[in-house]
Every structure is written in structure tokens, then in C-alpha cells.
């Protein structure tokens, strides 16, 4: 382990650029912290803090020396590995009607992501299990995943919507990163988690960190866990949820839910995507496109002229029972890593932890 002073952060970016990575990092855009290509450490959201609540996200100025005194923005790592929209293959039709098909190669380049949160690393590990499933690994996901270099930052300033401590996924990053930073007032404890991370770290020629710095950092993340007031009732709600498919509570939530799909867009583990055909105007080519879909959309459950889940009650139930129930069967754990984004970005402020608590208490309204 070593210590990287705040003013040396740029040298880390330079080393990563020298290793061939484009850097992507958190930046303030349109009033939120988003991941975007990062040319310099000066673009990082230094001095910002996020205030989050159900249906609420605001940035305020606080802690002028800190780069990472915020929890998260609407994006996780998902858009970097699972493209919101891309071409999967292309059909060509000759004038005689003969067809040919060509796969569209994945577009990817080595990318270093700065400021990855523990919840999002846990979510990435879950996406890996889905998209790299042995029976049919997704080559688009695989190409982008292979190209990632992840610089995690342990969380010291959770938002009011965070509940990663209760899902067991944060605030400390414990695996899945190449480098991990713990931010103190004057810099970062930096540690490698992979050979690639080790190689980058060796080029920085840093001083070693002190025992006092380590204990300050440990206290900060322990405090971050304690500050979290939201929680899931249990890490395994599978049997409870499948036993409550006819609970009156689903209808109660449906009275508030707009079925807009914001929650599935910001969720770091929601993986549904639709295949669509987009014929080109030339009459010769047709693109087979895939793009993010949501189980809240009407088309998601369409079969031969009917919609299996025609009501919001059934769509919200599908989402929640899948995320906290079906994932256990499919991937061996809950699909929620406690990032809290679905609470923040829900336009009517539906709080997943509150709905789970009601169901856990027997489905009686609040």
C-alpha cells in the first residue's frame, strides 16, 4: 500500500493513459455526477456532495479538498459494458431477394474507470454471471468487460438512499478492482487488486502509507456504514416474496407507480434488452438492433397478441420479485447491491426498502 497525495492524482491518470487506457471518471453534468471521458483530474467533482432522497437528487458544495465526498450519480458501470443501444447484426437483401447476414463486431477500447463504488463493483460481478453465462456468453459484453481497468474508491459519504451495508456490498470495495483508493483530507491510500493494478502502481513511485492513515480510512468507511439508515429486511427474501404473489400490497404500490422504467434504467443489475429491426431507407440493408428494455414496458411481456403483464401491479411485482427473489435461483444471491438509485430516480419516490419492509411485515399498508 502507498499514499497518493491529492495533487498527484493527475499522475495516476497519466500512467493509465500511458498504459493505453482512455480514462472515464465522474464529472458534474446537468446537475448530476455522471461518468464521462476524463482528460484531467481537474474535471473530477472536487468539493461536491450529493443530497439524495426518494425522488430527489441535488449537488451542493462541501468539503472543498475532497474529490469523492459523494455517493453516486444515476449511472453505474452498466452502460460501459452493456450498451444502451447497439447493432447486433445486419441483413442485406439483393435485388433478387437473396439475403445475407453479417455480425456487427463489438465496439470497445481499453477503458480505465476512476471512482468506482463498491455497490457497482458488486453489481458488475452479477452482470458477469448473467452476460458471461457459460451456455451463451454475450460477445459484446465480454469484449467491453475485458477492456475495463477499475479504480475503486471506498465510500465515506453515503447518501440517505444508500443501503449497501445491509446488502453486504459496501461501503468498502473488497474485490473486483484493479486499484482501490481510500480518500483522506490530503490524499489517498492506494492499493492494487490485480497484476494490471500492480503494474500501474509501480510506475507512480509513491511513499508508503502510515498506520495512522489506515486507521483513519477504516474509521471513515465504518462510519459510512453506520450512517446508512435504510436497509433490506433480509439478504434473502426469496421465499417470502414468492409466497406473497397475491398480496394486496402490489396494488397499493401500483396506485403510485408510473411504470416509467426509471428504476430499471438506473439499476446497476437490470439486464433486460429488446431486439428491434431497423430497415435502412436504401431498401437493401436492415439493422438488427438491441437496446435496453424495461419490465415496466407494455411490450416486455407481449406474446401473440396479448400482454402477460398488462397491469402496473403485475409489472412492479415482476421487478421486485425478480430482483429480490428470482435472482437467488438464477445467480445465487439477490440482484440488489444497495446503491439506492431506484429510490432517488423514481419520479414519485417509491422506496424499495420501504416496500420490502411492508411485504416482510405481512403486506399490511403503511
Amino acid at each position, binding site marked *: 500500500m502507498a499514499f497518493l497525495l491529492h495533487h498527484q492524482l493527475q499522475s495516476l491518470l497519466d500512467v493509465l493513459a500511458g498504459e493505453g487506457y482512455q480514462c472515464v471518471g465522474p464529472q458534474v453534468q446537468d446537475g448530476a455526477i455522471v461518468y464521462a471521458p476524463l482528460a484531467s483530474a481537474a474535471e473530477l467533482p472536487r468539493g461536491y456532495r450529493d443530497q439524495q432522497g426518494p425522488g430527489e437528487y441535488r449537488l451542493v458544495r462541501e468539503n472543498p479538498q475532497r474529490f469523492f465526498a459523494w455517493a453516486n450519480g444515476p449511472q453505474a458501470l452498466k452502460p460501459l459494458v452493456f450498451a444502451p443501444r447497439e447493432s447486433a447484426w445486419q*441483413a442485406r437483401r439483393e435485388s433478387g431477394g437473396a439475403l445475407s447476414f453479417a455480425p456487427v463486431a463489438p465496439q470497445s477500447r481499453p477503458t480505465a474507470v476512476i471512482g468506482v463504488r463498491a455497490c457497482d463493483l458488486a453489481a458488475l460481478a452479477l452482470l458477469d454471471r448473467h452476460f458471461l453465462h457459460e*451456455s*451463451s456468453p454475450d460477445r459484446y459484453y465480454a469484449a467491453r468487460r475485458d477492456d475495463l481497468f477499475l479504480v475503486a474508491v471506498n465510500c465515506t459519504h453515503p447518501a440517505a438512499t444508500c443501503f449497501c451495508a445491509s446488502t453486504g456490498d459496501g461501503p468498502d470495495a473488497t474485490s473486483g478492482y484493479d486499484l482501490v483508493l481510500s480518500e483522506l483530507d490530503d490524499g489517498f491510500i492506494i492499493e492494487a487488486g490485480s497484476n494490471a493494478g500492480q503494474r500501474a502502481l509501480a510506475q507512480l513511485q509513491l511513499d508508503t502509507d502510515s498506520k495512522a492513515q489506515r486507521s483513519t480510512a477504516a474509521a471513515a468507511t465504518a462510519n459510512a456504514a453506520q450512517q446508512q439508515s435504510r436497509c433490506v429486511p433480509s439478504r434473502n427474501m426469496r421465499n417470502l416474496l*414468492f409466497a406473497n404473489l397475491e398480496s394486496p400490497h402490489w396494488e397499493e404500490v401500483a396506485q403510485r407507480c408510473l411504470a416509467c422504467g426509471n428504476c430499471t434504467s438506473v439499476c446497476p443489475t437490470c439486464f433486460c434488452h*429488446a431486439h428491434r429491426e431497423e430497415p435502412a431507407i436504401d431498401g437493401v440493408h436492415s439493422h*438488427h438492433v438491441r437496446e435496453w*428494455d424495461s419490465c415496466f414496458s407494455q411490450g416486455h411481456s407481449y406474446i401473440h397478441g396479448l400482454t402477460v403483464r398488462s397491469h402496473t401491479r403485475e409489472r412492479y411485482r*415482476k421487478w421486485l420479485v425478480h430482483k429480490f427473489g428470482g435472482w437467488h435461483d*438464477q445467480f445465487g444471491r439477490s440482484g440488489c447491491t444497495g446503491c439506492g438509485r431506484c429510490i432517488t430516480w423514481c419520479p414519485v419516490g417509491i422506496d424499495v426498502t420501504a416496500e420490502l419492509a411492508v411485504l416482510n411485515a405481512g403486506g399490511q399498508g403503511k
Partner: protein
Amino acid sequence: MSGQVPCRARIVRRIQESPTIFTLGIELLESNQRKRFSFTPGQFNMVYLYGAGEVPISIVSDPEDETMLDHTIRVVGRVTRGLALLKEGDEAGIRGPFGRGWPLDAVHGKDVLIITGGLGCAPVISVINYILRRRADYGRLTILQGVKHSEDLIWRQRYERWIEQPDIDVRLAADVGTGNWPWYIGRVTALLDGVEIDAQRTIVMMCGPELMMARAVGSLASKGIPGGAIWMSMERNMHCGNGLCGHCQLGPKFVCREGPVFQYPEIESLLAIRGV
């Protein structure tokens, strides 16, 4: 990687089965893909129409027929309306085969009871033909097919031919019958009452509306057939065929990869629950 891009294919045969149902006999054009393609009855293909997209269609032809793959399709939406316009010689695309088909090994030497509703007969037709060609390998074969309206029945001549055969018990039912319907009028599940069943040696295969299948499961249980002897083909929205896109989920099951054919206990708690 299997089935991520369609194979070139050509329509070699088109049969109009009913006013809204047709069968496309499709041949893969690349000989190496044709040779490599093998399927189990009950599996499905994604059938591609240029410029319109894909639909999941079960393969109804004989798995040992290396020349052609038959797909029986009902006109319901944008893509199937377009597929209905294809003529012999036109080209299309095929991705597949996908999913788990019928448990042919488990059926060997057993009595087979097939219960289907509407176009649910299509995913099972291939297994019926498979058994008929190896008739001596199986015990009693009983086929119960139900339709909403008597005019919805496809493959009428085929059913009539089977009814003539001494070694198959075939019974048909229509919820609503016209003058030209000599068979039972009512629910297909009611036909179960008159069928002779040896509960110890019967394997059941079902495909059709979930409520019909749930009702049949109840009758079969009262006849002493264990749940593990019942197999059913389920239907959900499908886009990718590889268990990745998420549309086909039935509870925690990816129907396109783990199904479409399930052993009843695998989906017992999810069958016929509205909106699951």
C-alpha cells in the same frame, strides 16, 4: 455463441392450414449449417423476416428430416403477417434451435398421453410423429386436442387418419362446435374422464393455455399421476433465444433456455398465476 446471427434460409413449401394458420417448410441454404443443425422435438427457432424482425416458432417437422424444417405459424402480429406473405423460393433467416425439448428418453417404453389446446398442438406434433415412426418402442398413445371453435382445428385430416388407427386413442374437443364437428363439445380436459390411464407408466406432455394445463394437472392428480410424470411447454415473449434478454422469464426461469418444456414440479408454483 450459438445462434447469434441468422442462417440463410429459403421457403421450399408453404401450406395454408386454416384461414389464419400456415406452415412454412424452410431449408437452410449453407450445407455446413444444414448438416450441423439438429434439434429435439419441442425446441424452437427464431424465424427472421427481412426488415421486420424475428418470431419464436417451434419446429414441427421430423428431427431426422435433414432437408427441411417445418414451422406452423398463426398470423397475429407485424412479423407473422409478413411471414404469411412469403412464397416458395423466398428467403428468410433462421436462428436456433433454442431451448430444451420434450424428454424423449423419459418417454421410451412408457404410455404417452398428449393434451394440447389450440395451436399448442404444434410444439407436440413433432414428438407424435417421432413416436409413430417408432411405435413399438412405446406403450399406449393417447392424444387429446381441444380448440375454442371447431373451425380452429388444423391438421383435421391428420387427426382423422390417426383416429382410424387402432394403436392410437385420439379424442377431439371444441368449446363451440358447428354442424361439421362429430366430436366432443366442451373442454378438452373433460375428455380425460373417459381415458384409460395406467398412472404408474404414463408420461404426459401438454401444451396450450396455462389455465387449461392447470385444470388438466388437477384431473391427472386425481388419477394418481405423479407431478414428475407431467411435462409442459410454456410460452413467454422471446427476443434473443439465449437466456440473456430477459423477456421470457417465468418467475426465475428463463423459458427460452431452461424450457420451453418443463417438468411440472419445476414450475408448479407459477403455473396459471395471472401476470407472472
